[in-house]
């Protein structure tokens, strides 16, 4: 009788906290972020410091909440270009309610703001899930419509004269951390819990990676698809309320185009355009990356008119990173170039060729 143990090796399942896995998945991004911080600290003397870090947190908080909204829709296999408009719309309704009812109206204003976000998200979600229309185009047109309504409710004017206590609280600090960053952190944590630890989060990931398979597994796909847009609408409304508190006033045309930054943050943070993959931690890191790059470039002395150029380039960069992760696009072409240089032209195997 042999004492050598079982013939079939049972695989050892090692428990690893989700947080550590997330850090491992986002290692390239963490390295890039560190490199950026070191480079900017060397180039601009005022960059590294507690004060500037607080400024970056304040600048990035609203974008972080919006990026979480964008991430939920992207993970569910869609895309939402109306987030900036929903932000502006719910910020306008919140600000108008606050101006009307004063400090006593704060809970009402928050409810009104969240409800307007939910409403706009529901319109998106129902049109997209019920008729199966292209989410890019539908949310592009609703972004115009919702932005128009933001103008309509306020007659296109700035809304100010909001209760001081509210704006002081939102623009102030809690234990040395900006309130906005605290809210953003709480939102990020709840999105993380929903995505990683609930059946709903799993169902959404399934929906994003394969719609038909999810339907066969008994997920009520259309309802869940619509719900992603509604959750995104509510999160955009939270961002809108934060924007009102931050500035103490609101115009219907502010935050135009912020949805693209939010999407770029998601994609830099590892959310795939094709759906099904993404994490709240990655979104947080992606947002920080964008915030650090923008702040650092201004410290280095970039013209403000070129900031939009930086945003656009970051978006393209993010998509290329996304394609490289999946081994398509740029990496495949680099493979062809390498094979051509080392083995001569035409020596790339078919399965190594770029897919397009």
């Amino acid at each position, binding site marked *: 009788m042999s004492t050598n143990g079982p013939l079939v090796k049972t695989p050892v399942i090692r428990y690893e906290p989700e947080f550590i896995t997330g850090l491992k998945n986002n290692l390239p991004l963490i390295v890039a972020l560190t490199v950026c911080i070191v480079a900017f600290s060397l180039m601009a003397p005022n960059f590294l410091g507690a004060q500037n870090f607080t400024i970056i947190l304040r600048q990035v908080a609203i974008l972080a909440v919006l990026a979480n909204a964008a991430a939920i829709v992207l993970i569910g296999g869609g895309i939402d270009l109306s987030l900036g408009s929903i932000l502006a719309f719910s910020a306008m309704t919140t600000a108008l309610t606050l101006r009307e009812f004063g400090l006593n109206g704060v809970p009402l204003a928050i409810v009104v703001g969240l409800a307007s976000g939910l409403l706009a998200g529901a319109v998106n979600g129902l*049109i997209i899930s019920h*008729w199966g*229309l*292209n989410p*890019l*185009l*539908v949310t*592009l*047109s*609703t*972004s*115009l*419509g*919702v*932005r*128009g*309504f933001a*103008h*309509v409710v306020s007659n*296109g004017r700035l809304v100010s004269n909001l209760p001081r206590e509210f704006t002081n609280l939102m623009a102030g600090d809690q234990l040395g951390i900006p309130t906005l960053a605290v809210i953003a952190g709480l939102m990020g944590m709840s999105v993380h819990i929903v995505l990683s630890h609930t059946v709903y989060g799993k169902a959404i990931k399934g929906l994003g990676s394969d719609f038909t398979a999810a339907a066969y597994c008994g997920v009520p796909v259309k309802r869940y698809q619509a719900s992603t847009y509604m959750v995104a609408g509510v999160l955009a409304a939270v961002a809108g309320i934060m924007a009102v508190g931050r500035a103490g006033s609101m115009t219907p045309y502010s935050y135009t*185009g912020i949805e*693209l930054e939010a999407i770029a943050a998601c994609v830099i943070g590892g959310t795939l*355009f094709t759906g099904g993959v993404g994490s709240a931690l990655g979104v947080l890191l992606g947002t920080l990356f964008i915030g650090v790059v923008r702040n650092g470039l201004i410290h280095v002395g970039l*013209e403000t*008119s*070129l*900031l*939009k*150029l930086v*945003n*656009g*380039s970051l*978006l*393209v960069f993010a*998509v*290329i990173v996304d*394609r490289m992760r999946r081994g*398509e*696009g*740029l990496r495949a*072409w680099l493979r062809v170039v390498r094979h051509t240089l080392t083995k001569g032209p035409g020596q790339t195997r078919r399965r190594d060729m*770029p*897919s*397009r």
Partner: protein
Amino acid sequence: MDISLGGITGANVYTRWLGRALSWGEKYSTFMILVTLIVIFSLLSPHFMTTTNVRNIVIRVSIMLVVAVGMTLVLISGGIDLSVGSVAVMSSMIVGTILKDHGISAAPIAILAALGAGALVGLTNGLFIGLFGVPPFIMTMAMMMIARSLAEFIQRGVVPDVPVEFSRFFMTNIAGTVPPLVVIAAVVALAGHLVLSYTVFGANARGVGANASAAKFCAIPVLRYRLALYITSGMLAGLAGIMVVGRTNSANPGALKNFELEVIVGPIIGGVSFLGGRGTMVGTIIGVLIIGIIGNALNLLGIEPYWQMVTQGAIILAAVFLDYARHRKQ
């Protein structure tokens, strides 16, 4: 591609006639929408059918049409180009700045520079889309931000002092009725129609849009077609920028917001599909006319700009529905 299978044999004569009437209605539906809109707006506003207003509409539509021709080609090949508005603004800033600094004698150089900048943007779009596989929507949207940013970088404010001769060249009527601006648009539209309907290039572009991998198996160089089409679209957007300077005699980095949406919706109403492979240049012309007339009428009827924005969103949504309905039938 529209492939007619002929009449259904065995169907009785009434169904056949009904079918013919329906297909006739579908074929000319956009044209009938156009006529209906013209009738409605002439009844609603006494200023609608005046010579000045018609001239305004035609000039506005010709700038849109030049870009829409390029957009039609891109849409038919299965792509989309959202950067055209910003590219037009960028090229108008280039033309305006060069003309202001060097006078009217620099006009050929200014025009070449603007067209070249448009082509360069198109080349970049095409390279990233065709080579690196960035989705067209995202790539051109990023390019929209980049080109707008460059336009603002060239000069922060409006360039007002463009030599008058430049504008006079574009706006003085030929034979007492038609400004050269409109002639340029007509020539571009005609060329686009000929290329799309009567050349191998047009047919192949359609094939790329209908099924890119099938086109690849048919030995169509898909990447080269994508590059050519995006470069065309960028150059035509550059031409539109030149025409804008010719029309307004100034260049404004904040102009033409949401221009790309109007230019996309026009072809879609005219029967071009977001999914690629379908559409004609005649449909595009009618669609752009519809958009131009609606925009003009909303202004004439005194609708507030905010509601115009909502209307624009609703029109795009309607166009998406229309496209969906047309596509589902086939």
